[in-house]
C-alpha cells in the first residue's frame, strides 16, 4: 500500500493505492484519524486501490464516524471499482459521501 497526503480547496486528501488489507490497516487508520481528529475536512482518495478487505473498510468507517463526532466533513474520492464492489457488498455505498472530484471549498 502506498499513500500520499495533500491539500486541495480546504480539504486534506489522503490518497491510497495498492492493496488495503489487514497488514496495511494500522497505517491507513493512523493516516485517516490523524486528519479527522485534528478537525480537518478529509477526503480519502481511492482511485489507485486495487484490493480492499473488511479491515480496510473498517478504517473508512472509523474515519466516517470520527468525523461525525467532530462535526467535520469526510468523504471518499474517486473510488475504484474494487472498492465500490466491496462497499456495496457491505451495503456501505450509501453511507459515505462519495465524490468524483474534490467538492466546493470545505468550510465554505
Amino acid at each position, binding site marked *: 500500500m502506498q499513500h500520499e497526503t495533500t491539500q486541495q480547496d480546504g480539504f486534506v486528501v489522503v490518497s491510497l493505492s495498492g492493496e488495503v488489507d489487514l497488514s496495511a490497516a494500522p497505517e491507513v487508520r493512523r493516516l485517516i484519524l490523524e486528519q479527522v481528529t485534528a478537525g480537518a475536512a478529509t477526503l480519502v482518495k481511492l482511485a489507485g486501490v486495487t484490493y480492499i478487505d473488511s479491515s480496510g473498510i473498517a478504517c473508512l468507517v472509523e474515519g466516517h464516524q470520527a468525523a461525525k463526532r467532530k462535526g467535520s466533513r469526510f468523504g471518499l474520492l474517486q473510488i475504484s471499482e474494487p472498492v*465500490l*464492489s466491496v462497499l456495496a*457488498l457491505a451495503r456501505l455505498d450509501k453511507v459515505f459521501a462519495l465524490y468524483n472530484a474534490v467538492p466546493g471549498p470545505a468550510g465554505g
Partner: protein
Amino acid sequence: MTQPLLLDLRFKADPAWLGTVRERVRATAMGLVHDARWVADVVLAVNEACVNVIQHAYQGNATGEIVLRMKQAGVFLEIALLDFAPPVAIEEIQPRALEDIRPGGLGTHFIRTLMDRCEYANLAGGTGNLLRMQKRLCAPPTSTLAGNTGN
C-alpha cells in the same frame, strides 16, 4: 475417488502473508473458472477467513500456523482452512447486522454472502478449528466484485 489438492499452503498467522495467500488462491481459482468476478469472490472470502483466524482464533499471535487447502469436489470448489489455536465458540461466529454501522464485523458476512456453503468445526483433541467453504463452479455471478483483483 478423492480429488487431488489444487493448493496446499501452510503459512504463519501473520497479516504480511495475506498478499501471497491471495495471489496463490487467485491463480488456483482462475485455473478452475476463468471468470474475474467468481475468482474475486473466492479470493475475498479466503482473505476474510484468514483475517478471522489471525484476529480471533490466534488473537494476533503471528507465530500460529494456518493451513489452506483447495480442491474440486464435484461441481464445487472446496476450501478448507485449518488453524491450531484454542477452539473458538462456533455459535459466536455470526455476521453483525449491516444496519449497525461500525468498524469491523464484516468478514463473516462477506464469507457467507460470497460462498455457497460454509461450516465451522472444532478439531478433535481440543486444539484447532476448521472452516470448510464451497462455491459452485461456474455459478451465476452473485456479487459485484469483478474489479477486486489486487496485485
